[in-house]
């Protein structure tokens, strides 16, 4: 039978391969060997090289030189010398460069798409229709931020030379997410590409040179974890941005602790895909395809954990299985391929092991009928894995908890909307969530309650340069995209000139004061025991010890509780219980803060006397500090109902809300100086934004904070919103940094203490904000209050809401 007749019967699609000859010619032009891109030039590929293979068939595509210490050093040097002139350019000049890059990407769109597909194994449809257009969009958008930086971020300066480490799942897109905001802010870059997929970054480097980007502004080093560690550890960097696994993110958090580098981490996920019985089921089924069978499931924000309302689960799964039958796994360059090749054999092995463990655990695995031995034989040369569905999965199983990073969906059921949210949040991760319901009330309720940085209602895996992307919990911190993403590459300008905090005296031991300390003023009144303040009650420290609070001359004023681990534990539990505070309106919180300011002012003289007594600053200065503290509370009372996020329209008939949400529980270590103002400056913005706090006040001068207990009580601050544990700042800060139920830690103390907080927070990857031992002038509004504090007190949740009828 002739071919047409045969096809008329089968109605198969037939092959439809994308042309790859231009890319192959480019590889040949480079002799299949690449070096680093440093100071505007590709270096000779000498020294150790590693192989780059096409995961679809194992073909050797190129050999790439691994960057060692010398290369990383040269790259940082190039970036450092370029920083001076690049950061001095006007916004318009930098914008022109970013625009030129965007145009370069568009001009070479198909080249980049084909190269990415060859290198990574993802289908050409995705590189062509999704990755590369988003890359161009990212540079366009950030060309705008370059133009607007000084208008939009007054008082800010570029962070400096940035180290950036990107993953292999979206090589070029992740490059764009990192490089575009850095250059827009005025930073220069040393980027490390992923070992599996270095090729598009090399092509991008060439495009930059062609576009006339000044030498040294963008530098590229190749290699694996060793090279990454060299970049991360380089002392010449002001900022490190990383996208990758939570495991490596944790290592980087520890490695960079105390280095003064700004850090943003975009890590793993096990994102819920919630299907309510009010959903358009066919829409949700197609959503699953875009969620977990996009990019072979190698997507950090993949909706990999389906939560389906029990009443529709059978129907949903039946439809899903029918849809899976029609997915096509095959050559990534074929235009009719849905699922291409997994990036490398090691990743296939990891997926396989997790799937086998899931089967052994008793979950039910389903794969399409065509995923048989013939499929295995036809695909044995490449890294192919069929789409897979696990049902009968229990929330406690590894399948439900661990990221598989492959085309594998695990599905569970729920009974009520409340249970859906509980199951959704039953994860250490918090990157994204997809919510399917035609009922706006149901969908929005879940969107607000789910702990995730990105929420897609009736949609999934949508991205836009204007919409912030990033995680909650162990999915990392920091945002990429939008205004919030720009702030990751900027620092308050005054910080660049900040001086060290004077080294403080050691805290006296928690024992009764001996005679040499001298007599305090003999009190005529009853002895006042200063306790801790936990859950709205004054509590004795669990340790049973107190430590002396001395005046500047070393005379005993009184004794304060010697807080310990267990007091922090109790305080966090009290803070946890005060969740109603986070759900209150900004207006309601504002009223409490106004009242607090009013009540503090009533007792201004008493507080001033106390401050003077503890610090010896003189009554004038002490009075000034109290007045400033009252003003600060008023400032945040004013802000409480106004920091309400932004709305963007990234697509037609689509609103993306950038919603600042509280961290819930923040641990705060207050500075020694300005014992009242420092305390108020940190606590007020935190609670104004709806957080509950566990605070250690000024360790040497804790009494101003302790005197606040009664003011808090009389000002209707609900129990558990502010919890105060006095004692050794650094000892208590360690406990807070290690506490897995605290989501963020702020620390104003020594450089060592700052390093310790950053290091110890790696456990649950808290968002940390430390002073690195640098002083802040709490009296100066430019330093002591404002948007920076609100930015630190919240995390942006992006909620994508399509609409239309």
């Amino acid at each position, binding site marked *: 039978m*002739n*071919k*047409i*007749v045969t*096809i*008329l019967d*089968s*109605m*198969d*699609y*037939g*092959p*439809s*391969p994308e042309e790859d000859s231009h890319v192959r010619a480019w590889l040949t032009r480079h002799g299949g060997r690449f070096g680093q891109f440093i100071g505007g030039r590709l270096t000779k590929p000498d020294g150790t090289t590693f192989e780059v293979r096409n995961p*679809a*068939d194992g073909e050797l595509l190129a050999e790439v030189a691994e960057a060692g210490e010398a290369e990383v050093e040269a790259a940082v040097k190039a970036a450092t010398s370029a920083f001076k002139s690049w950061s001095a350019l006007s916004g318009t000049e930098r914008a022109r460069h970013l625009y030129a890059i965007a145009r370069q990407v568009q001009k070479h769109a198909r080249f980049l798409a084909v190269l990415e597909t060859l290198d990574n194994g993802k289908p050409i449809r995705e590189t062509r*229709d999704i990755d590369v257009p988003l890359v161009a969009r990212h540079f366009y958008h950030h060309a705008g931020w370059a133009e607007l930086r000084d208008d939009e971020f007054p008082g800010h300066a570029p962070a400096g030379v940035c180290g950036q480490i990107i993953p292999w799942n979206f090589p070029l897109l992740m490059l764009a997410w990192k490089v575009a905001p850095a250059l827009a802010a005025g930073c220069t870059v040393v980027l490390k590409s992923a070992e599996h997929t270095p090729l598009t970054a090399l092509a991008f480097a060439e495009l930059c040179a062609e576009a006339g980007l000044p030498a040294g502004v963008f530098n590229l080093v190749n290699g694996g974890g060793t090279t990454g560690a060299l970049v991360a550890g380089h002392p010449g960097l002001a900022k490190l941005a990383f996208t990758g696994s939570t495991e490596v993110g944790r290592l980087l958090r520890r490695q960079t602790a105390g280095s003064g580098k700004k850090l943003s981490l975009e890590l793993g996920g096990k994102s819920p895909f919630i299907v309510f019985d*009010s959903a*358009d089921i*066919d*829409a*949700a089924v*197609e*959503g699953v395809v*875009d969620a977990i069978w996009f990019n072979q499931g190698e997507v950090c924000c993949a909706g990999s954990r389906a939560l389906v309302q029990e009443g529709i689960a059978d129907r949903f799964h039946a439809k899903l299985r029918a849809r899976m*039958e*029609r*997915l*096509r*796994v*095959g*050559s990534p*360059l*074929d*235009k*009719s*391929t*849905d699922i291409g*090749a997994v990036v490398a054999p090691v990743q296939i092995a990891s997926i396989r092991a997790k799937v086998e463990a899931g089967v052994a655990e008793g979950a039910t695995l389903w794969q*399409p*009928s*065509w*995923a*048989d031995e*013939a*499929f295995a034989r*036809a*695909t044995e*040369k*490449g890294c*192919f894995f069929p789409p897979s569905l696990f049902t009968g999965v229990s929330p406690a199983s590894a399948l439900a908890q661990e990221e598989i990073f492959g085309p594998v969906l695990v599905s569970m059921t729920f009974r009520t909307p409340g249970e859906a949210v509980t199951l959704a949040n039953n994860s250490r991760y918090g990157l994204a969530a997809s919510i399917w319901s*035609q009922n706006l009330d149901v969908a929005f309720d879940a969107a607000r309650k789910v702990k995730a940085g990105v929420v897609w209602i*009736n*949609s999934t895996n949508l991205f836009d340069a204007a919409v912030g992307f990033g995680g909650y919990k162990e999915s990392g911190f920091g945002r990429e995209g939008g205004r919030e993403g720009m702030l990751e590459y900027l620092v308050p300008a005054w910080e660049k000139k900040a001086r060290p905090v004077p080294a403080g005296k050691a805290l006296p031991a928690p024992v009764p004061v001996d005679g040499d300390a001298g007599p305090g003023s003999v009190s005529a009144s009853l002895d006042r025991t200063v306790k801790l303040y936990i859950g709205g009650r004054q509590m004795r420290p669990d340790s049973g010890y107190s430590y002396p609070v001395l005046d500047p001359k070393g005379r005993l004023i009184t004794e304060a509780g010697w807080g310990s681990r267990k007091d922090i534990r109790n305080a966090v539990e009290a803070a946890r219980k005060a969740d109603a505070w986070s759900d209150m309106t900004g207006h309601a919180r504002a009223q409490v803060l106004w009242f607090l300011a009013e009540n503090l002012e009533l007792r201004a003289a008493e507080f001033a006397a106390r401050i003077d007594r503890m610090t010896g600053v003189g009554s004038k200065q002490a009075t000034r500090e109290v007045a400033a503290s009252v003003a600060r509370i008023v400032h945040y009372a004013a802000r409480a109902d106004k920091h309400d996020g932004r709305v963007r329209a990234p697509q037609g*008939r*689509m609103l993306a809300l950038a919603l600042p949400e509280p961290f819930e529980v923040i641990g705060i270590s207050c500075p020694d100086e300005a014992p009242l103002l420092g305390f108020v400056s940190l606590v007020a913005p935190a609670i104004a934004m709806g957080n509950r706090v566990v605070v250690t006040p000024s360790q040497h001068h804790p009494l101003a904070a302790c005197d606040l207990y009664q003011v808090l009580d009389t000002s209707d601050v609900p129990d558990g919103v502010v919890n105060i544990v006095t004692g050794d700042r650094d000892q208590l800060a360690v406990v807070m940094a290690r506490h897995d139920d605290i989501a963020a830690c702020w620390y104003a103390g020594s450089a060592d203490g700052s390093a310790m907080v950053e290091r110890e927070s790696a456990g649950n990857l808290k968002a940390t904000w430390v002073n690195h031992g640098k002083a802040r002038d709490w009296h100066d509004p430019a330093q002591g209050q404002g948007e920076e504090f609100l930015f630190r007190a919240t995390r942006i949740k992006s909620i994508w809401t*399509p*609409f*239309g*009828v």
Partner: protein
Amino acid sequence: MNARTAEPASGMATGLVRIEQPQARVEGVPFQADWFDAVDVNLSAVERRTATLGARRSVKKEWQAAWLVKAIQCIDLTTLAGDDTPGRVQRLCAKARHPLRDDLVEALGLTGRRLTTGAVCVYPTMVRTAVKALEGSGIPVASVATGFPAGLTPLEQRLAEIRYAVGEGAEEIDIVITRAHALTGNWQALYDEISLMREACGNAHMKAILATGELKTLTNVYRASMVAMMAGSDFIKTSTGMEGVNATLPVSLVMVRAIRDFLERTGQRVGFKPAGGIRAAKDALAWLILMKEELGRDWLDPDMFRFGASALLSDIERQLEHFVTGRYSSTDRHGMA
């Protein structure tokens, strides 16, 4: 893995058994509002699916040629104009019998095989002319009826019109629904009306035109589809070709999914006919891809799928000549309808 091995690896269409015998009639089922009451179609999701469908699947070279031949076989070659004359209808029928130039048929290796359009579609008074002109070709004549296109003549007259067209020899009747029933949510009335029409059709197959461009919302489209199928429509069809908006992929997706749901519930297989505004060969491919992806191989033959079109054939002819000769073709090289 080589791209050429992708097809067997994908396993498409395995397990989807083709049914070769003539399409059984759709019997319909009693009216059941709970089959569609709770359905609420998400527009953005539908649009996203249809926007990416054409990018997810591609047919090239021989495959594209074969798919375009298939499209010809699925065309209801249509003339529905006030200036239709017997001569015009005869010309159309001649084209339906002989849709593609002989040299192209030969180059495609199809000489000696039956290659005609799926049907010819005309107004009731033109049915007799068409039947005569198509005698011996095996091409059925489809007639619009029931006060096409608005459907607002009295019910008795609409039913009489069906009987007239059937009496004239029409084997397929394309009825129009009363949009008011759908727009006011009077689904029972719609069901009753279509049931009567189905009865009037007798042995002629019935296609129910939903006039989706006037139903406006996709949820209405789904509900009307389901009601039309319950009432025994053999096909559901998007448009008369006279609405402001005619066949679109989003509307088609919703109707096709309704067909799938109806199949799941009843085991009855309903055909689909997009009509109006489909003029380009590329559009035809997009619809065929939609059918294959959402319903499967069985919906790629004229017994289950038709295009209501008049200009489409001309573009397909040009594309097929390009496939054969490698040169871009012009309209005047192909005999007109």
